[in-house]
C-alpha cells in the first residue's frame, strides 16, 4: 500500500532507511524542523539546518523516489531562549517560498513554561501573517495532557486560525478527543515508550473514526522505527478493516491535509486496479 509519513526526521536517518521506506511503499515524507539533540548556539545554526531541510533532504529522498516536504520553526526545547527564538522566527520568511515548504512546524510546548508559550504564540502570529499551515508538537509523557490543553487554549484565542489547516501531533488516549472535538487534525505517533503503539493507534481509530486523523513514525535519532506506518497498516489488516479505510488514514488524509499548503506539489504514483494501492 502506498503511504505518506506525515512526521519523520529524515536528517537523522541514513539512506538505508530511505531505501527501506521506498521498498515498503512510502511515496512521500513530511519533515518538521526539530531539536538536533543539543541546543544550537546561534541563528546561523538554524540557517544551515533550514538549508539542509529545503535543499539537501529533498534531493536525498528523490534518489529513492520519495517526495520530501518540510516545515520550519525553532522547536519547543530551544524556545526557552526567547532571544534566539526571535532571531530564528525573523529568519524563517526567507525560506517559506522554497519548493516543498508546507508551513510552520513543529512548534509546541515541552515543559509547558512561560517562555515556550511566548515563542509558540509568536510562531502562530508568523503563520497567520504569512498564511501558512501549522504542525504542532505536544509534550511527552506526564507533560502531554497539560501542554495539549494549554496549546488548544492558545489556538482558540486566535480567531485568524483555520482549524482545518492545523495538525496537533503526538495525540494519545487522553488528548485525542480534545483535539478532534476542537476541529483540528490529530496525528498519532508510533514511537517506543514515550508515545503510542500500532495497536493503540488502531484502538483510537476504532473509537474516533478515520476523519482528520493521521499516523506517523516521528523517526529520529533516538530509538525509533521509521517503518512504523507499515506496522500500523498490518495491525489494521489483522483486525479486518477495509483497505479503503486504511488507505484513507495513511494516504488520502495526508494528501487532503497537505494540499492546503501552496507549496505541496505532490506527484501521485500511478495506481491501476491491478497494481499496488
Amino acid at each position, binding site marked *: 500500500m502506498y503511504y505518506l509519513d506525515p512526521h519523520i526526521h529524515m536528517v537523522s536517518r541514513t539512506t538505508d532507511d530511505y531505501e527501506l521506506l521506498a521498498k515498503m511503499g512510502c511515496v512521500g515524507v513530511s519533515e518538521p524542523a526539530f531539536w538536533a539533540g543539543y541546543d544550537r548556539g546561534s541563528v546561523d545554526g538554524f540557517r544551515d539546518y533550514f538549508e539542509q531541510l529545503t535543499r539537501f533532504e529533498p534531493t536525498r529522498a528523490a534518489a529513492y523516489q520519495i517526495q520530501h516536504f518540510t516545515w520550519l520553526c525553532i522547536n519547543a526545547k530551544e524556545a526557552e531562549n526567547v532571544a534566539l527564538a526571535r532571531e530564528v522566527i525573523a529568519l524563517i520568511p526567507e525560506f517559506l517560498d522554497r519548493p516543498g515548504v508546507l508551513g510552520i512546524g513543529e512548534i509546541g510546548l515541552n515543559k509547558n513554561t512561560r517562555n515556550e508559550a511566548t515563542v509558540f504564540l509568536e510562531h502562530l502570529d508568523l503563520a497567520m501573517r504569512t498564511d501558512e499551515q501549522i504542525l504542532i508538537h505536544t509534550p511527552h509523557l*506526564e507533560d502531554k495532557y*497539560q501542554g495539549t490543553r494549554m496549546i488548544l*487554549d492558545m489556538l482558540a484565542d486566535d480567531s485568524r486560525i483555520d482549524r482545518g489547516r492545523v495538525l496537533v501531533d503526538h495525540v494519545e488516549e*487522553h488528548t485525542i478527543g480534545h483535539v478532534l472535538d476542537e476541529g483540528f487534525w490529530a496525528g498519532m505517533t508510533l514511537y517506543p515508550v514515550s508515545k503510542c503503539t500500532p495497536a493503540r493507534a488502531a484502538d483510537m481509530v476504532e473509537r474516533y473514526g478515520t476523519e482528520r486523523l493521521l499516523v506517523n513514525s516521528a523517526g529520529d535519532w533516538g530509538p525509533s522505527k521509521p517503518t512504523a506506518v507499515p506496522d500500523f497498516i498490518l495491525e489494521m489488516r489483522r483486525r479486518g478493516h477495509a483497505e479503503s479505510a486504511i488507505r484513507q488514514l495513511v494516504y488520502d488524509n495526508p494528501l487532503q491535509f497537505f494540499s492546503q499548503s501552496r507549496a505541496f506539489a505532490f506527484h501521485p504514483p500511478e495506481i491501476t486496479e491491478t497494481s499496488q494501492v
Partner: protein
Amino acid sequence: MLARRTTDEVLQCEFLQIRAKLIEVAAAMDRVERAEGSLEDPRWSAFQAAIEALQDAGADRAEQLQLLFSRPYSAPWRQQLGVPK
C-alpha cells in the same frame, strides 16, 4: 468501513500478548520490591493507583491511566505563568 470484532475474536488474537505484558509488569514490580530501599515513593504509589484503575469496568482504562500519569491542567495557567492572552 471499519470492522467490528467480537470479544472472542479479540481474545483469540491477543490473549498471549496480553498475558505476556501482564507478566512483564509483574516481573518489573518484583524487581522493584527485591531492590534495596523504601517503597514510600510517589512513582510506586502511581503504579498501585494504575493497577486499581485497571480493575474498573469500562472501555477507557488506557485514557484513565494516561491521566493518572499526567500533570494536571489548570485553566488559569496564563495568569499563573504571566502569559498574556
